[in-house]
């Protein structure tokens, strides 16, 4: 059974004592798709992402991974299928060395040591960071940290990659590397970001969120070219789409 399909059906969520963060979110993302989730601060993007691996449970509605509803019983397999890369790599890297951090997930999956080693090295090679394996994560540059954080998730061989602001705090070169990496993945990808140029380059489809709802959904170029829609939800038409002539 394929886990690559991910679906939300009318998801509602409110933080304890707070306002409603999600107010009826529905979508379906299929195998190998790269989808951007865009929207202003506080639109509910991060809250939505935390629902996709069962860290938060909807107050109403359901999330389906593959063809299974995400429940208490299926949460373990959902976490294996959906890899979440957090906004701040410092939250994700907490072991004494890069290698141990990348091995953390596979070890939790109960794999034998030899497989753990092989997976961790393969994941670090994939992001080009295998030379850092013995280094403590807190001493890395922002770009290196981001790449290692992605490796920690890749090592668990997820079907779906979910990323929160993957290009924040990166210098242009590290951002360019990241975009190349994201384009190369065969996983289903869900990327929440304010970096609209990254969305143009990586995602074929976008969902625009505002105040806990998906207010628009469609092909990237078509939606991002809609100046009125972008302005109405705290976004802007990406520069690269304004100029079709070469600079």
């Amino acid at each position, binding site marked *: 059974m394929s886990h690559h399909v991910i679906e939300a059906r009318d998801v509602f969520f409110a933080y304890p004592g707070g306002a409603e963060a999600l107010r009826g979110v529905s979508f379906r993302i299929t195998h190998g798709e790269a989808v951007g989730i865009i929207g202003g601060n506080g639109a509910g993007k991060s809250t939505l992402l*935390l629902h996709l*691996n069962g*860290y938060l449970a909807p107050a109403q509605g359901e999330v389906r991974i593959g063809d299974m509803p995400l429940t208490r019983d299926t949460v*373990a397999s959902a*976490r*294996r299928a959906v*890899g*979440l890369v*957090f906004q*701040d790599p410092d*939250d*994700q890297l*907490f*072991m*004494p*060395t890069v290698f*141990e951090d990348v*091995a*953390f*997930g596979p*070890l*939790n*999956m109960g794999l034998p*040591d030899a497989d*753990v*080693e092989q997976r961790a090295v393969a994941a670090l090679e994939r992001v080009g960071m295998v030379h850092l394996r*013995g280094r*403590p994560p*807190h*001493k890395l540059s922002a770009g290196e940290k981001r790449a290692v954080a992605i490796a*920690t*998730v890749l090592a*668990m061989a997820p079907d779906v990659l979910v990323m929160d602001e993957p290009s924040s705090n990166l210098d242009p070169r590290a951002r360019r590397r990241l975009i190349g990496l994201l384009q190369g993945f065969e996983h289903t990808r869900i990327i929440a970001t304010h970096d609209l140029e990254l969305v143009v380059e990586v995602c074929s489809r976008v969902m625009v969120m505002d105040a806990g709802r998906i207010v628009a959904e469609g092909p990237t170029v078509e939606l991002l070219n809609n100046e009125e829609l972008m302005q109405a939800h705290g976004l802007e038409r990406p520069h690269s789409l304004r100029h079709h002539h070469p600079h």
Partner: protein
Amino acid sequence: MSFGHYIEVGRMDELGRMDSPVHRLDARVKALATLAFIVAVMSFPRYELSALMPFFLYPFALMAAGNIPFGYILRKLLIASPFALAVGIFNPFLDRQVVMSLGGHGISGGWLSFASIAVRFALTVGAALALVACTGIHRLCAGLERMGLPKVFAVQLQLLYRYLFVITGEGLRMMRGVELRSMGRPLRFRTYASLVGHLLLRSMDRAQRVYQAMVARGFDGRIRVMRPAGVGGRDIAFLVGWVAFFVVARLWNLADGLGRIFTGAGL
């Protein structure tokens, strides 16, 4: 970042990751030897001082063989010392009976027991710090767990240790923000109160996010470690050798004996 330099965030992890004959020993034999050491040191009567001296051999041997800088452990000891001193500080006032004389001065039991407490503190805490420095907290906790320490304690210990870095990191960033805008003026009490409150909230938020990231990678209440090496001949020799030394040093006052040999007084 003078403040951060002072706390030396992360240094213990770096030391624990080094490679040396002591680092390569199984975590369990080191933990057991250190436990035996602590029991031996703590079992001496309250006025004992000279018989404790040979025990300094153990922490020094760990540090020397493990390439652990002596000054680093000493600084950590000094940070913790107020606790030990607070335990014994009233002894000199409560116990004024003279129990020995040194160069014509009478020394009261209180001062002697206070000195004994200070030495025991230096020995036990120094040995525990040296143990962590030459093992690494992760391997140490995994070793303790395999020896039967309940899982929940091992994880508590590891997370306590990990969040210590998280909270100092948050604190350092806040202090930098304050220093840059305080123009060298001392902080008012109100500002301090607000800072401490913010530190609590911030570190709770961050702890929450770290936990989210752990859960996302399949954390189920147990931190697993690779290469749990088996116990070999060298490990057994380390344990047996040191425990034998502790027993001998506990039963006979080696410092006293050595003194007698040198002064020709005979044993």
